[in-house]
Structures are given as C-alpha cells and as structure tokens.
C-alpha cells in the first residue's frame, strides 16, 4: 500500500507552547488509522493540520506526494466529522448534507439522489425536513457523518465522533463506521481516547502522549507488544511492576525469579514488567509462585475483577472464578505473558524535548 498522507517533522506551537513535537506519520491509502491518546495529547491538532485549519510552525505535510502546507482547507480532498458535529443550525437535515454538493454546483436532481442515498446509509430516511435541533445526539452524529461522506472525499477525518453517544449506540455506530469505511474504500483518520474503540475498529493505531507519537502498529502489535509501560497501561488495564532483568530469559520481580521470552537487555538492567490482568492464573495458595490476599472482588459481567495484595504489590486479576475477599491465593504467570519494557523515565511535563528511550 502506498502512502496517501505524510506528516514530516511537524511542529505546532500555541502561544509559544509546543503542542506537537516533530510528528512523523505516514498514512496509507484506504486504511482505517486511529490516533489514540489521553485528552490534550494533540490528537485534534494533528487532525486539524491534515484538514488545513492549523498551520505547522515547522515541518511539511504531503498529500499524494504533493506538499500541501499552503493549500487552504476548502481545496483539500479531505472532509471532517467535527468533534461537536458543527451542523448548520439554519439548515435542515437535507440541506446540511447537501451543502458540499451545492458548493460544487452539482445539479439539484443528482444532488437530491445522493443525499437520499446517504440518508439511507446512515439510517435517517424520512428525516430530510427535520431541523437540526429536533435531532438526538446520535442522529446529529449521523447527519455529520453523512454530510462529510456524501462528498466522497479521499480522506475522512473523524474527531471523537462517538464521544457523546451512550454505550449501546456507540457500539452500533462503531460497526457501522467500519462497514462504511470498508465498502467505500475511503481512508479514515479517526481520533479517540477510548482504547477499546481504537483496537476494535482500526487497521493501525497511533498512540500519542503529550505531543509525541509513542508507537504505531496494528491493534495486535500495540496490545501484545506495547513499547513502554505507558502504552501498555493506556491500551488496557495492566499490572506494571518494577523488576530487574538478570540475564536473557530471566527476570526478577515481586521477590521471585521468572522465566520469560525477552532478550537483549543489559545484565541487571532495571525494567518494567507488564502483566495483563487476564494473564494471571489463580491457583491454590501453596501452588503459586506469588501468594497474596484477595482485597476485593467485583463482578464485571464476563469475568470477576479481583484486587490482590501480595509480595509488596497490588495485583489486578481478571478471572472467571471468584475468590472470597480475605482468602489467601496463589498466582502464576506463564513466560509468554510476561512483557519486559525499558523503565520509562518520568517525563518532565514542562520540558517538551523528548529524546526517546535510548538508555
């Protein structure tokens, strides 16, 4: 697959404060790529760079190999579903969706047919004459998607489009959006702070933190091989325990020596050990490598979530069987489920320069 959009060393500053620190990102044609990160990490700004609403202080942006830094938004082959929809309040549903086509001077008949088709696609048939303020959040959402999609852009930018919807509707729309993306072949650049959403919908996920890209990869890559403890924790609840990598395949943590599958660390290097809650096996107290006391149990539907204290650490465990609070249990972890990461230096928030993890 070829690259459709390339961001090269993009730096953005607001009032002297660096919001994007030399972002490099290659977006492939027809892919569903998601920018994932906590609020304020620069996702919207990255999207606005692509849409043309923010100018980069440094760096270049290419579309189809052509530098488009100075191309105004209205000339870009990109449409946006804005974070808060930004529907036109003086126009009804039909007129909102029709807007882009009207600007392009498409004949009314053709226009009308396309709008109808779109309304059907987003499940709003019969809503043509409704005014915007008569719609629920979910319906407005779908109008916003239709208004952007009807123009058949090369790229669709979506800024937390499902943020305002309730869980059930959000799940439905996730499936719907994925389906639309696959059937239209439009490149989707999707922004969310919801890791589950990112993992279920995307071809590739870009994990961001305070203006930096930490990791780019498929959802599987990101989930199974997070590059550092921050990504691991953000991408799913994790146990992050300090440890020492004694030699290849041997790591020490929680007062115990474990076998693992990682190599290439310095002898006796300080590391972070990441273990997923579902990867801790609960056994009898005397059969586990670590033992601990159950502090709390919460029923979560598919599994129980247990908080266990043992070996000086708190352990989060997802298990299909519950143990009574107060009981002593044993815990085992398989070598494959132990993920070793360079110990992340606590980033100094005020200092924006970041030089990676070279230690």
């Amino acid at each position, binding site marked *: 697959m070829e690259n459709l959009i390339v961001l090269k060393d993009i730096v953005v500053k607001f009032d002297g404060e660096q919001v994007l620190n030399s972002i490099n990102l290659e977006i492939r044609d027809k892919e569903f790529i998601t920018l994932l990160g906590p609020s304020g990490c620069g996702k919207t700004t990255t999207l606005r760079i692509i*849409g*043309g*609403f923010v100018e980069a202080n440094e760096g270049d942006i290419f579309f189809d190999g052509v530098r488009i830094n100075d191309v*105004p*938004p*209205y*000339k870009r082959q*990109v*449409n*946006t579903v*804005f974070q*808060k929809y*930004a*529907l*036109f*309040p*003086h126009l009804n549903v039909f007129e909102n969706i029709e*807007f*882009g086509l*009207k*600007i*392009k001077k498409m004949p009314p008949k053709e226009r009308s047919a396309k709008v109808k088709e779109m309304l059907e696609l987003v499940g709003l048939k019969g809503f043509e004459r409704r005014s915007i303020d008569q719609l629920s959040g979910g319906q407005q959402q779908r109008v916003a998607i239709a*208004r*952007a999609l009807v*123009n058949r852009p090369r790229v669709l930018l979506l800024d937390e489009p499902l943020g305002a919807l309730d869980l059930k509707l959000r799940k439905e729309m996730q499936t719907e959006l994925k389906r639309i993306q696959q059937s239209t072949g439009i490149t989707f650049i999707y922004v969310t702070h919801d890791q589950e959403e990112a993992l279920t919908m995307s071809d590739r996920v870009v994990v961001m933190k305070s203006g930096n890209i930490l990791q780019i990869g498929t959802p599987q890559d990101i989930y199974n091989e997070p590059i550092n403890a921050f990504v691991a924790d953000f991408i799913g609840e994790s146990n992050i325990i300090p440890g020492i990598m004694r030699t290849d395949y041997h790591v020490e943590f929680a007062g115990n020596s474990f076998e693992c599958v990682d190599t290439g660390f310095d002898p006796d290097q300080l590391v972070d050990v990441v273990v997923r809650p579902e990867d801790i096996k609960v056994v009898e107290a005397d059969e586990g490598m670590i033992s601990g006391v159950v502090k709390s149990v919460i029923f979560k539907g598919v599994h129980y979530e247990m908080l266990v204290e043992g070996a000086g650490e708190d352990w989060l465990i997802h298990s299909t069987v519950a143990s009574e609070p107060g009981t002593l249990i044993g815990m085992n972890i398989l070598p494959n489920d132990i993920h070793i990461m360079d110990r992340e230096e606590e980033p100094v928030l005020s200092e924006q320069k970041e030089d990676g993890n070279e230690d």
Partner: protein
Amino acid sequence: MKISRSTAMPYIIWMIIFTVIPLILVTYFAFTDGNGTFTMANISEVKDYVAVIFRSIWLAFVATVICLIIAYPLAYVVSRASEKKQKTYLLLVMLPMWMNFLLRTYAWMTLLENTGIINRLLVMIGIGPFAMINTQGAVVLGMVYNYLPFMILPLYSNMTKIENRLIEAAQDLGAPSRKVFSEVVWPLSLPGVMTGITMVFVPAVSTFIISRMLGGGSNMMIGDLIELQFLGNAYNPNLGAAISLGLMIFILLCMSMLNQFNEEDKEGMII
C-alpha cells in the same frame, strides 16, 4: 413560561400608566378638535405633510443602509477577534455614546459650517468651500454618526454566537470565503441585521434635533413637525397627535414586515 400574576403586576401597572394611557390619549387627541368634539379633520390634514413624511422615511432609510454597510464588516471583525481585543473594540464603539447627544451634534455643526474647520482646511489645500451644513447629506451624516452603535451592538452580539467551527465546517465542505459568507455567515446573522435595522430606523425616522441642527429649515422631518405642533408656534396638539399616530402605525407596519421576513428566528428580535 408561566409567570404568576403577582410577579407580573408591577409591569402591568407600568404598562398601563406609561404605554396604554398615553396611547389612548394620543388617539383621543387625534380624533378630536380643540373643544373635544369628534373630527376627522386632523387625520385628513396629515396628507398636507406628505412631503415631510416621505423625506423623513427616505433620509432614515439612507442612514440605516449606510449604518448597516459600515457596521456589518466592523461587527464581524470584532466578533472574530480575541476576547481581550473584543472588549477594547467595543469600548471604542461605545465611547462616543458617553458624550451628550446634543453636544455631539453641535460638534458636527461647527465642523460642517461654511466657515467651519473642514471647509477652512479644504480652502487651505485649494478646494472648496462646500456647502455642507443645512443639506440632507449633513442630516444623514448626523444620523449615521449618532445611531451607528445601535447597529453595531446587535450585530456584534448576534455574530459572537456564530461559532468558528461552523465557518470551518463550511470551508471543510469546499466553500471559499465568498461562499462561507453567503451560505453561512449572512443567513446566521440575519436576526442581528433585523434588530439593527429596527434600532436605527425607528429613532432615525422620528428624530428632530439632528435635522433641525444639521439640516436647517428646509430639511424638516416628521419629528420636527410633531414638535412644532406641541411646543412651536404652530401650536396644534390635535394635529400633532394625528401625525404621531400615523408615524406609529407606519413604524408598526415596517416592523411587522421585518418580523415576517424573519419568521423562524425569534432570537434577537425586539418585539
């Protein structure tokens, strides 16, 4: 919204004393002669002053249009500025209003006089002098100068409600600046335009000081005419009441037409 009767009472009393009773009195005077007997004479006499009435409407109309043309871009620029700058700009708009209305108009009188500062400057650079005072142009100028803030403020307050993201959305959908204006900004600003027009046209059409001071004797307006009937040597309150009634009905008609125009957007309208 349901307002309890006791809360509304003070306003109802206010309305009766200061709106309903005067209206009844004006109507009574308009349809009676000096002795209090019913007559249509006052009403039919109004038609003798058609020229004055049309001049008033025309001058007020021109002043309103000029105000709109000046205020619209100004209000737009202010509404898009940063919050801190908006405050400064607004202060500049309001500043002249802190000065007494008469004083402001007097100032224009001395500026525009045949031997006033402007003409003297013009003579110095070899053009002029021009007859500026006592012309319709001077009256319009006076009205524009005095009523411009009444156009800017409603426009500005309306335009601050037009969110930037709507403008961005239009650009995103392919609209160049011209289209962003005609398809989004203008339609969304219409309520403000309507309010501004009302707030300038109504006082302008009934003004009397400005026309007297800057327009001289030959540019009399309805306001002057009415004033003459009550306080001037033409003393005839019954005729004055009839003209007032006519003016009021005309303004009501204009405003209901504007309201019609603006059916859906109740927001920002003056009832």
